[in-house]
């Protein structure tokens, strides 16, 4: 069972939460265990047609010619859908929020840019008839040089992948080829650091592999609208995207979904609805477009692969005084959501640690690979993996306990983040204390007493103040920044009642007397609410 440590920050919370801490049954659980939950494919229609899509066998090639005449005459085939049939054949998902340029066709026109890119749709009376007709399509290609490595793609002379972004990098604000973060002066800090450690981290693309593959059924309604049953994770996002690609007012589409057989981010991309709707409009019949498992793996976007370089400057007393990050996100051939992942990554650097000198350059790079997309914390997961591996190596390099090393550098209330925002409502130290207790990981006394609420002039009592080296940040730092230059932090005005409890005893003591103020307060940093 879950255990709630209400002794921590007890003074900041009324214990008036109704749902949190109570087991609550899922509203769809009875449907699941009785196998009556209705997924998109559990809707039945008379005369259902099936759409199958012919995909590129090449990572990069010019299409010289397409001959689908035999396929069009094949038994059961109702309609061939070509690029020219798609009303708006260029889109980018985030265009709905004016972010990025339309760069991805629904069906390739002259060039295919990754293996699996859709070229032609075949609508037939059965999946089998569609697949048999597909075997009759003749396409001739001129293969083009392809690039599969993010750093290779940025070299001069690399093949250009995506004509909307000919330099192989996404464009931010119409002019910047990457996201940049600058805080303090990392070079000067590296020069002063006791130890400088650099490493490279490479992620793989990861397929979400939901047990239910992506799919949808588009059904023409008698009122002229199209009803769409879909596996999407993002119903309105998909509705708007499908409306745009089909040049329809969105009130002509009625999307029904919500029961999704696993998504994990892989059902955000609106991969089947636009063509299913187009096929339904062209044939006047209900059409299902369902990915096979192979299509899900090859064409369904994976988590992007990131390459990350981290360089840290560390002092022997445990402080990290500089962190430099260079990262390349492999977007694949088109943007989908990687441009946004890069921004999340930039917002996350340098991790939950107070570091006075930070520099980061993060690129969204186009390669001839399957376009990447959202997956569980994308943009942050990989950089966190890299940072935490690096933290372990840093700790080893200076002979410090890795948990204590993290606690020492953890954000505390009042710290200045690299983004020039004040750290508020920090709790990493407390989390580490509980984790250490659970894992029976020995922490020294001063670490067991450490608190996110108290900076303390002596920097958590690791060493004598007198033995601490001079502040590592060079005087060059522009005076205009409000950056902290030492680890001293103002003692917050804490009333005696609010003094943090001693190291959590086992079993936990009853919560300290509740102070006034709602429990939500601590977590409302979005609105700038500060605890008293």
């Amino acid at each position, binding site marked *: 069972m879950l255990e709630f440590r209400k002794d921590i920050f007890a003074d900041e919370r009324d214990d008036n939460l109704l749902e949190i801490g109570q087991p609550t049954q899922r509203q769809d659980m009875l449907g699941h265990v009785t196998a009556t939950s209705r997924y998109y494919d559990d809707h039945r229609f008379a005369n259902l047609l099936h759409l199958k899509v012919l995909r590129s066998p090449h990572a990069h090639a010019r299409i010289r010619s397409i001959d689908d005449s035999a396929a069009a005459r094949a038994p059961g085939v109702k309609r061939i859908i070509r690029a020219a049939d798609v009303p708006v054949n260029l889109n980018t998902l985030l265009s709905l929020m004016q972010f990025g340029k339309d760069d991805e066709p629904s069906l390739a026109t002259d060039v295919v840019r990754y293996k699996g890119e859709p070229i032609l749709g075949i609508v037939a009376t059965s999946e089998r008839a569609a697949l048999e007709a597909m075997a009759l399509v003749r396409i001739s290609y001129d293969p083009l040089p392809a690039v599969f490595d993010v750093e290779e793609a940025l070299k001069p002379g690399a093949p250009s992948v995506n004509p909307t972004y000919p330099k192989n990098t996404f464009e931010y604000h119409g002019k910047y080829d990457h996201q940049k973060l600058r805080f303090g002066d990392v070079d000067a800090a590296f020069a002063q650091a006791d130890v400088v450690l650099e490493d490279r981290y490479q992620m793989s693309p990861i397929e979400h592999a939901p*047990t239910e593959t992506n799919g949808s059924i588009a059904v023409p309604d008698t009122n002229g609208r199209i009803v769409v049953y879909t596996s999407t994770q993002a119903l309105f996002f998909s509705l708007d995207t499908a409306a745009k690609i089909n040049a329809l007012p969105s009130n002509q589409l009625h999307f029904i979904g919500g*029961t999704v057989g696993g*998504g994990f981010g892989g059902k955000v991309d609106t991969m089947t609805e636009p063509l299913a709707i187009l096929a339904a409009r062209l044939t006047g019949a209900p059409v299902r477009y369902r990915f096979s498992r192979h299509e899900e793996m090859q064409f369904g976007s994976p988590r992007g692969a990131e390459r990350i370089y981290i360089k840290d400057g560390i002092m022997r007393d445990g402080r990290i005084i500089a962190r430099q990050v260079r990262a390349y996100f492999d977007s694949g051939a088109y943007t989908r959501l990687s441009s946004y992942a890069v921004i999340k990554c930039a917002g996350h650097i340098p991790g939950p640690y107070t570091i006075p000198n930070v520099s980061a350059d993060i690129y969204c790079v186009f390669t001839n690979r399957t376009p990447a997309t959202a997956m569980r914390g994308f943009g942050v997961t990989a950089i966190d993996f890299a940072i935490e591996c690096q933290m372990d190596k840093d700790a080893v390099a200076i002979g410090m306990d890795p948990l204590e090393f993290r606690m020492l550098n953890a954000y505390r209330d009042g710290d200045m983040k690299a983004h020039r925002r004040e750290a508020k409502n920090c709790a990493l130290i407390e989390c580490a204390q509980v984790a250490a207790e659970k894992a029976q990981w020995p922490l020294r006394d001063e670490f067991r007493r450490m608190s996110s609420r108290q900076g303390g002039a002596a920097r958590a009592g690791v060493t004598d103040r007198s033995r601490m080296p001079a502040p590592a940040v060079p005087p060059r730092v522009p005076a205009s920044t409000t950056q902290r230059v030492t680890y001293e932090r103002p003692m917050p005005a804490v009333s005696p009642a609010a003094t943090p409890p001693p190291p959590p005893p086992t079993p936990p003591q009853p919560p300290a007397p509740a102070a006034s103020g709602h429990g939500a307060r601590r977590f409302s940093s979005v609105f700038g609410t500060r605890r008293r």
Partner: protein
Amino acid sequence: MKTPIQFRLNGEDVAAFVEGGANLLDTLREIVGDLSVKGGCWQGTCGTCTVLIDGVPRLSCITLAETCSGSSIETAAGLRRGSELHPLQIAFMERFAAQCGYCTPGMLMAAKALLDKNPNPTRQDVIEAISGNICRCTGYEPIINAVLDAAREHARSRA
């Protein structure tokens, strides 16, 4: 050419005309109308489509429908008796052993095959019984615990 086949589905007689080469999964879903059986890979790798044929768990996506003539088939739709849930269904609910629910029908049938044969399984027995069923959401621990709970409950109700 279609072949007539006849089998028992959850205790009821069923007849269908199937294409040569049709698989049991499509036959159950598209012809017979039992939508409790789900497909996840259509190639015999995920276990989502598991049904019991004469008590033995089988992957319906790679079972030829014609070979099922005369057999007795059980699917998740037949687990409950009216409004009364099977102990496995109750245990899955109580143990939070489903999230998206898509693997659940196949999981339940794999577990039922085990409990029908072996009412007092060990943890290892349960792990082996569901080892052909992929769940991408829940994680296997809650599922294993649910099956063990159901076995205990079953034993208690008969004691």
